[in-house]
């Protein structure tokens, strides 16, 4: 399928791979600076309180303490937030969660910093706190922000749901809950910085969005753009939480006042306490089908707990509402998701922005309907699945690249085989086996808002190429993929291209590495720039080769004519000639997906320019005496448009499945209880299934070489597939995540499986 391409579609070696296997990449905690001071934040003693006084005098007297700063030392706007600004860097008159910072200490050693923290005396006036979002919505609940406890409500309305339920043959109404989840990237948040000779604050950060960090620091400290430089250090995973300003603001504050090198590396415990979590959801869902199993109405009322601050809460509420129908065509839609403030640690972006939570609900409902109607779970998905020509819940007409049914068809043979040879065979009398499906759709990019990317591609007069992109590489492989796209356009090897990534002095804004958007959006931006450069090279070649421009192609470092490979001219020669004439060899690229903002009342609009689709099948075995669930195998079919780098796509799918298994079976962050990695278990190599990754390529016409995205889609179907698998094994359904040992054991007991099976 990819034969016509030389770089695209090939699993080339990852840029920076050699350095990574040698342990060479410099993460923010590894950066060598001249005797950097250590930073530490004094955090709130209460989940909700007014601050009456902060006394830092004692702390300042401690040997080795070089500075203590509070909100009074922040000269600009002391408010953070990429969508809504509601989070102070350091608290002013009120603390809203245990994560809230009150003062920053800079000291010569860790020990001195800790003594400094302990010596800061804060007088509080304790306020009643609320942790449950349903409680927070009630009259008389403690008010966390001046505007009230509702951060945002997103409604998606289409047709008339009441009419749909009226006509329905089968109606199923259930409630699902999910837990707060810790991202648990392996590298705890870190940053370091110094002030350069021009007085610029130079900050190395573990980040998903260096240009956003830059903007926030400029605003916090009332500086000019050129006085802040963010350099993305090697970043050890992010999964959404490194979209927030975790340590960058503290480093900036210390640099601003002390002007000496500083470093802040969170311990795992501090990363747990102080950084965002996945929003826990409570989802009430009512769905209806006709006699044949066709979905005719969906009503969802969901509440998600954003904790003390918004972070990406608005995006989570909005995206989850849009995705509430699942990848199905539903005539009558009535969805409302409320995002509510509480006094928990704030929740933000995490791989999927609410779509994984919603997928548990819509996919469980599909299986429940199938069961009631006596239809196979795969058949009911095929019957209702989105296709070209379908209208989404927001009224968007899907015109191309809807590979959902291709994913279902790809799964089908594995599914039929699993039903035959897996489910029916039982290894011991205490175990039961099941197979479950999970499906999803996922809009690429931010929801109904502009989210452009820019990039620059530059050729030197000697023909060497450099790509400048603000796109943060987190390990997922964006740098490699962007390089492949440029290599393809310019007809050179990816090895010949230098990549300058995530340095606000040299790169322009690519937006966040989130929302599975970088391959599609930054991919198009680098493609745009590379095409402009290719165009001047081709124009220049016309003169030399004396043939029409439309017969020229760039390949193997030359411009040649189609059909006559012997007649060619090297790009270095062309670059030199263009340069000598004063021509332009450095081009800026831009791409912003076409969206239409969602109507605030009805949610109507075009939230995304394109969607990824997927279906996963999980084969599970349940120990009916212990509740232990083994996920034996997951078959994962993903429509990615086009895989620019197939093995990177497989890597995303395997990683997503692993995180999905954690979400399904073991992960739950409990504030006050989950303190360190001894309290929070993510899947080990022994916990993950074998993954059969199937790449479906339903080309997206607006994507770079047809590509869409896969980072978040990889995770979304896994938990529902596992939960449906457990239900298939036990004939008993679990509605709450995680399906922990206790919950599965309880299900086993309720279903009458606790004991030796009589065969």
């Amino acid at each position, binding site marked *: 399928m990819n034969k016509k391409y030389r770089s695209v579609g090939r*699993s080339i*070696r*990852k840029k*920076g*791979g*050699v*350095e*990574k*296997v*040698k*342990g*060479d*990449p*410099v*993460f923010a*905690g*590894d950066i060598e600076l001249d005797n950097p001071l250590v930073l530490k934040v004094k955090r709130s003693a209460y989940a909700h309180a007014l601050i009456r006084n902060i006394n830092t005098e004692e702390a300042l007297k401690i040997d080795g303490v070089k500075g203590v700063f509070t909100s009074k030392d922040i000269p600009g706007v002391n408010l953070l937030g990429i969508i809504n600004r509601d989070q102070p860097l350091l608290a002013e008159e009120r603390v809203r969660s245990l994560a809230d910072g009150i003062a920053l200490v800079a000291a010569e050693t860790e*020990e001195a910093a800790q003594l400094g923290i302990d010596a800061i005396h804060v007088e509080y006036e304790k306020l009643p706190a609320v942790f449950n979002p349903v409680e927070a919505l009630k009259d008389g609940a403690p008010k966390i922000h001046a505007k009230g406890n509702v951060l945002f409500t997103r409604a998606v309305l289409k047709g008339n749901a009441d009419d749909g339920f009226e006509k329905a043959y089968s109606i199923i109404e259930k409630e699902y809950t999910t837990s707060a989840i810790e*991202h*648990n*990237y*392996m*590298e*705890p948040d870190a940053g370091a910085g110094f002030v350069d000779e021009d007085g610029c604050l130079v900050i190395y950060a573990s980040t998903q969005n260096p240009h956003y960090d830059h903007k926030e620091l400029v605003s916090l400290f009332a500086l000019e753009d050129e006085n802040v430089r963010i350099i993305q250090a*090697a*970043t*050890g*995973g992010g*999964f959404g939480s490194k979209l927030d300003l975790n340590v960058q603001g503290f480093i900036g504050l210390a640099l601003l006042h002390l002007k000496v090198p500083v470093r802040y590396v969170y*311990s*795992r415990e501090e990363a747990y306490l102080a950084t965002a979590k996945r929003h826990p959801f409570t989802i009430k869902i009512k769905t209806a089908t006709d006699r044949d199993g066709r979905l005719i109405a969906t009503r969802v009322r969901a509440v998600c707990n954003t904790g003390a601050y918004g972070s990406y809460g608005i995006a989570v509420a909005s995206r989850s509402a849009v995705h509430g129908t699942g990848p199905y065509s539903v005539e009558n839609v009535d969805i409302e998701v409320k995002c509510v403030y509480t006094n928990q640690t704030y929740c933000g972006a995490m791989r999927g922005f609410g779509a994984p939570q919603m997928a548990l609900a819509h996919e469980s409902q599909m299986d429940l309907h199938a069961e009631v109607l006596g239809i196979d779970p795969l058949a009911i998905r095929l019957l209702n699945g989105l296709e070209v020509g379908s209208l989404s819940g927001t009224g968007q007409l899907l015109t191309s690249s809807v590979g959902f049914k291709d994913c279902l068809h790809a799964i089908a043979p594995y599914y039929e085989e699993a039903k035959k040879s897996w489910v029916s065979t039982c290894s011991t009398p205490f175990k039961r086996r099941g197979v479950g499906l999970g499906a999803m759709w996922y809009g690429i990019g931010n929801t109904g808002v502009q989210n452009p990317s820019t990039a620059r591609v530059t050729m030197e007069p000697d023909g060497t190429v450099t790509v400048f992109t603000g796109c943060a590489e*987190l*390990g*997922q*492989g964006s740098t490699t993929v962007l390089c492949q796209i440029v290599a393809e356009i310019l007809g050179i090897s990816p090895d010949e291209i230098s990549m300058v990534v995530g340095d606000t002095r040299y790169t322009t804004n690519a937006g966040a590495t989130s929302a599975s958007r970088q391959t599609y959006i930054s991919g198009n931006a680098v493609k745009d720039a590379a095409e402009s450069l290719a165009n001047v090279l081709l124009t220049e070649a016309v003169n030399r080769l004396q043939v029409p421009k439309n017969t020229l192609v760039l390949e193997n470092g030359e411009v040649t004519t189609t059909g006559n490979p012997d007649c060619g001219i090297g790009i270095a020669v062309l670059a030199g000639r263009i340069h000598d004439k004063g021509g332009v060899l450095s081009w800026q690229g831009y791409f912003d997906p076409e969206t239409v903002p969602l109507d605030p009342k009805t949610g109507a609009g075009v939230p995304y320019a394109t969607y990824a689709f997927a279906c996963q099948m999980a084969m599970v075995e349940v120990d009916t005496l212990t509740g232990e669930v083994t996920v034996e195998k997951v078959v994962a079919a993903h429509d990615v448009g086009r895989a620019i780098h197939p*093995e*990177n796509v*497989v*890597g995303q*799918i*395997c*990683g*997503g*499945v*692993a*995180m999905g298994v954690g979400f399904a079976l073991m992960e739950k962050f409990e504030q006050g209880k989950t303190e*360190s*990695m*001894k309290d929070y278990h*993510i*899947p*080990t*190599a*022994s916990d*993950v299934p*074998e*993954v059969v990754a199937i790449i479906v390529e339903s080309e997206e016409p607006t994507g770079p070489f047809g590509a869409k995205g896969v980072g978040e889609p990889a995770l979304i179907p896994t938990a529902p597939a596992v939960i449906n698998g457990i239900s298939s094994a036990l004939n008993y359904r679990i509605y709450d995540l995680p399906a922990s040992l206790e919950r599965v054991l309880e299900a086993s007991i309720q279903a009458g499986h606790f004991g030796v099976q009589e065969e």
Partner: protein
Amino acid sequence: MNQNTVQIEFTINGKKVTTNIPSHVTALHVIREIMGLKGSKEGCGIGECGACTIQVDDKAVNSCLMLGAQLHNRDVMTIEGLSKEKKLHPLQEKFIENHAVQCGFCTPGLLMSTHAFLKENENPDRQEITRAIAGNLCRCTGYQQIITSIEAALQDESCRGGE
């Protein structure tokens, strides 16, 4: 603050060193902060994640759980000692070829565990490999491409027997 120091003598990546260290610091601290070898990482500080894995007398250990003083008279290997001069170890090659590396933070520890494991077990099956790396957490890859890399390395004579 305890400023007692202790002198230790050990071999690190084939080089003999003698140094004074604070008596209370971990082996990881000695390696990162005193030896300046930053390839070993601290992911949790309590022995849960394996990012700090090094080899001490050919055994993989969590260096965050070991006192620096315990390195005395030991033979220590870190990720920096795996490739010889400019040549990658075949295990490293396999990790690259099979796309086992994403963010790279867990990679040094994983390579140390795997390298030590293959010295003890020259012909492990997939399940044994899985168990051997179960103490090294990775949040990016889902482990599959890592396990495949290790299987590929088993086909390569030079990866076995503790080369």
